[in-house]
């Protein structure tokens, strides 16, 4: 499992660079490195569906982020930190680490030995129950299709939200009324 640790180290290094570098375009590219490393980690953890989706979604997210930050002269302006926010973040990190140690000590199953008390049902019955070879697809679209319906609702709401925030019609009229 040494390749898993190498990829996780690469992801952590990419995340630190993305947070701390001054140029915004470099930060976006570093987040792209983190996402592509995450895709390969998913492939190593035997999740090919999630790896494929993560790969294409990462490319789309990097395109959107680059279009948001490119062609502006503010991309290289460094804005600095909030000192109080950094203090709160430090306290939060200490508490999170303490909680993580407590969770690890209190009988969480170790890496590589899942519990699978409930989900043992799905690999045993999915092929006869739905006829789909891909167990993940049968879970998404048959056993737990309500989740997918909720996901479709959230996606629709996000698209409507983007269209509403970015609308042109009605904006200028409001501004003129405020000026008057």
């Amino acid at each position: 499992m040494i390749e898993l640790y190498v990829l996780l180290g690469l992801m952590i290094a990419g995340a630190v660079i993305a947070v701390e570098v001054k140029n915004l375009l470099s930060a976006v590219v570093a987040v792209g490195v983190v996402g592509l490393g995450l895709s390969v980690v998913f492939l190593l953890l035997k999740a090919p569906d999630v790896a494929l989706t993560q790969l294409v979604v990462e490319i789309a997210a990097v395109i959107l982020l680059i279009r948001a930050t490119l062609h502006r002269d503010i991309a290289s302006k460094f804005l600095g930190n909030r000192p109080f926010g950094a203090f709160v973040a430090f306290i939060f990190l200490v508490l999170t680490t303490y909680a993580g140690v407590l969770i690890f000590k209190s009988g969480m199953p170790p890496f590589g030995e899942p519990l699978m008390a409930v989900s043992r049902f799905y690999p045993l019955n999915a092929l006869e129950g739905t006829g789909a070879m891909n167990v993940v697809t049968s879970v998404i679209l048959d056993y737990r299709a309500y989740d997918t319906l909720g996901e479709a609702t959230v996606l629709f709401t996000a698209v409507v939200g983007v269209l509403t925030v970015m609308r042109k019609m009605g904006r200028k009229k409001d501004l003129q009324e405020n000026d008057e």
Partner: protein
Amino acid sequence: MSKERERGMSVIVKTVTRLTVGLILLYGVYVVLHGHITPGGGFAGGVIIALSFINLDLAFGKRVSSGILSKEGTGVIEAMGALLFLALALIGMKYGIFFKNFMHPDGEPGELVSAGIIPLENIAIALKVGAGLFGIFLTLIAAQKFEAEKK
């Protein structure tokens, strides 16, 4: 920026895009249709289809891609995908429960026509995700010119 948006990128990018964008679209359709047999499915396939349209938009400029699919068209297709998904769920009510797989024993597992309504649901989700993502992309691109005017 605006000139690039109108006319597209250089001739090298245009030639490579003309050769590859059809293959990208075809791969997206393959991933959607084989979602119940191989890795993939509606989510990944829909995003790949949207990426092929985004590639066309970035390489050839606004006029070519809006001739194929406008922003209003993406809204209509997204709503159609959502309605198709909901209609499949509602037809299951006739056979007993919501999201009942009413076409289930219809083929040998492993073939393209199998697994009941799962391929149809995959197509519905692909329409929804792909059209939604392309609509978001067109909206965010169109906003840049508006902001430059205002500044």
